[in-house]
């Protein structure tokens, strides 16, 4: 299946040559993959991911992705 993955701030450091626009366009992702599995495939440590959004709605690392999903991953964003 195909996914669009957007990464925020420090999570981008784990993916060489990440381009914020358009983000990562992934293909050939196995059906029924979870967010955690996709993140692991990108070498992003799960403990650094604090916020998961799928198609604009907050979800969890263990949630299953569907073809065409837009996934956004955030670390903690706590600066003031």
């Amino acid at each position, binding site marked *: 299946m195909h996914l669009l993955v957007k990464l925020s701030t420090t999570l981008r450091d784990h993916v060489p040559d990440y381009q*914020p*626009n358009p983000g990562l366009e992934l293909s050939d992702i196995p059906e029924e993959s979870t967010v955690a599995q996709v993140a692991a495939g990108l070498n992003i440590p799960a403990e650094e991911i604090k916020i998961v959004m799928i198609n604009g709605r907050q979800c969890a690392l263990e949630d299953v992705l569907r073809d065409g999903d837009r996934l*956004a991953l955030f670390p903690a*964003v706590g600066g*003031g």
Partner: protein
Amino acid sequence: MSRTRQDFCDFLAARFPWKAESVPQDDDSPLFAEDACLKAWAGQKDVPVPEAMIDLVQANVWPERFRQNLDVYTAKQMQLILGTHVAIAGLGGLGGHVTGLLARLGFCHFTLCDMDEFSQSNLNRQAFCTERTLGRSKAQVAAQAVSDIADYASVRTMRVCLDKDSIWEFVQGADIVFDCLDDIKTKMLLERTCAASAIAFVHGGVSYQEGLAFAARAERGLARLYGSTPPPKPPRQPVSVLAVAGTACMMVSLALELLFRKSEEKPGEGGGQLSRLYHLDCGEPELSSFELGKQEG
């Protein structure tokens, strides 16, 4: 002509006759009054300047300083701005910009809290940090900045680290609290405190070129975002002035939306409210919004 407007026009004719010559005679046409007239009027009425402004705006008499707010905000919205008490926790990147925006908009009841002094590493992004203010208390400098914009504003300053002992004093009297702090543990304490008292809470968080913001009343968005265990404060939090200025604008916009919506609620309405989570990436630039999930437990 309304009674208040007639009284004010009579006052102008007596005290400022050169101003009274060009006064529109019908209530539908706005009359703009300069500070000297407003302050003299408030003095005669023996009321604080903001209270006098609230009465006069009702009669379509606008302070000259808010001429450009007219038609952006209604008279009722301007009255709400003038009468609302805002409390800003943290006066660094976000807090400085938020405070400046609120003062420009017309807010004039402030509680400002920060225990730090300005240092050189603040110069890249903090609104009130200049070479002249290095080493000075952020709270005192921010209070002076508000006074420089509106000398009739009432400003309470606190130079403390917010914790469970000081937080109730900080939120006392506040209608809207702005979370401009820099660690999530204290942000969550502030959110819990506001939610318990149904005080409007506006969150902002920044990192690198990005910012997050939401507004809530009697709801806890941070608890939904981060669960029950706040993530630790990182040793370093790089951030650009674009992220803090842009996120500060989002925070104030969300606060106004909450304030104006509350004024339209009927008695018995207005339970918990939680906006969408807004994400601004100033590196692109790109603005997105998300629906927050349910709170754990």
